[in-house]
């Protein structure tokens, strides 16, 4: 399957994949492939976690889990794109979509790789709270890895972008000679451009960090809205639950219950 081949090429040869993104090479095809491959992996993991509460929950979670990641991405993508182009990025919307899809794809692959472990605990340990926290830990870990991947991709592409704006790479000696023949104004202008480009790069880096926090917040809130993903033990199937509290307070409550503090 060509969709999975695209994902494998991303995992195997990151450098080339990032370079292809920068060159806008087959961006649309890559988006389609990563969308399908990550949806399949996330749906598989969703089905496993839902299987703890019957087949209806299994189907529901298989749809909800990929939706959680992909809808969060869709909600947050315009923020990243418009703010970045405001600060000098030359990438297109498709290239940004592909960049953020990379993180979702990495998360999906890692979750899929955790599937046998989750399945093992699902079969061997009949403790709802343990299963819940185990999955929160897995989601947190895979999420961090995905974010790290996205961060790397953005940094790599950002590093290449301004370098490309320069006409040629000059040796130090050549730079001195070249500077000798440049009018003072041109030199000052070039320094100004370089400083401005570096400032923009710094701003975009900070912007990305801010966006990642935003992405996490939107994702956790959407996850809270779309729950249940696991289904409570002994309770009938629920497509949705009433919105009460938030994701973080529930994680702490479960942790306290597990530790016997509640």
């Amino acid at each position, binding site marked *: *399957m*060509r*969709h999975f081949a695209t994902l494998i090429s991303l995992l195997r040869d990151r450098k080339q994949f990032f370079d292809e993104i920068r060159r806008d090479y*087959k961006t649309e*095809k890559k988006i389609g492939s990563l*969308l*399908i491959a990550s*949806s*399949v992996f996330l*749906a598989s993991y969703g089905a496993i976690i839902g299987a703890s509460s019957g087949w209806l929950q299994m189907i529901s979670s298989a*749809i*909800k889990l*990929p*939706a*959680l990641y*992909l*809808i969060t991405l*869709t909600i947050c993508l315009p923020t990243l794109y418009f703010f970045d182009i405001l600060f000098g990025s030359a990438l297109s919307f498709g290239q940004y979509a592909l960049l953020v899809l990379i993180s979702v794809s990495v998360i999906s692959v890692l979750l899929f790789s955790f599937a046998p472990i989750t399945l093992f605990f699902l079969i061997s340990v009949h403790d709802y709270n343990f299963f819940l926290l185990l999955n929160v830990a897995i989601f947190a870990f895979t999420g961090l890895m995905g974010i790290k991947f996205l961060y790397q991709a953005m940094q790599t592409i950002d590093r290449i972008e301004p370098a490309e704006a320069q006409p040629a790479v000059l040796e130090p000696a050549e730079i001195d000679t070249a500077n000798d023949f440049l009018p003072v104004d041109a030199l000052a202008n070039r320094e100004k451009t370089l400083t401005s480009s570096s400032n923009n790069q710094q701003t975009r880096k900070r912007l990305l960090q801010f966006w990642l926090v935003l992405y996490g917040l939107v994702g956790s809130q*959407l996850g809270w*809205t*779309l729950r249940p993903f696991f289904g409570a033990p002994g309770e009938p199937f629920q*497509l*949705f639950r009433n*919105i009460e509290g938030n994701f973080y307070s529930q994680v702490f409550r479960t942790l306290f219950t597990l530790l016997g503090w509640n």
Partner: protein
Amino acid sequence: MQTDLNELRITPSQLEKVTGLEVTDILMGKVYRPTVFRSTKRFLSFLLTETLTLGLILIFCLPLSLVIGRGLGILTTSNTVPFLLTALGIAIALFAIWNGWTWQKGKGLKTLAHLLDEVDKHNEIIDAVHIIDELGAIQNSTIQVIDREEILKALSATRESLLNALMTEKVLRKHQQFMARRQELFANIETNLATLQTLQANQQANEYGQLLNEALQIGMSLRQELEKLDRQ
């Protein structure tokens, strides 16, 4: 496969270059090839792609309508089933629209689809020659290589014709108006077809006779397609 044969093959990357579209067994760009219904393997591949597309639409549509429905207060525990059925209906409608759009787009690529079928046939002939070569290489084999040079010459002419035809189709598809190069390409194809006809006349009945005949059929088919294009 021997280098000379391999060089005669029209690869997917070459097809992509000359057509400007990504070509696979079932797709040309985003449009399905009409041949998806002619072989089980391709039909299964088509079904899988359709299932994945529907799945992707469902993944977006169902949870999103759930979030919107709850946010607007339309969705309650009492009307969950009708709400879900409506959301499912929207997803299926979107899927139908997508398919309708690709079908509509495919109508403009009929000539390309036909040419791609000819490319498949050309590559199949190369595979056949390769198999004959392998069988001929076995000691005490009864299969003899009679005139390999002639078949390679024929395949080379077919290959050139196919690439010319694909380029012409791309030019016409993109510009939809008279281009000077079209006549030149057309003349080239005519010359190659004449070469094929000569080769066919000279060739005695043997295992290559059939292959040459197939190459000639591709050439004839190409001329018909280009004549159709010329009339458009």
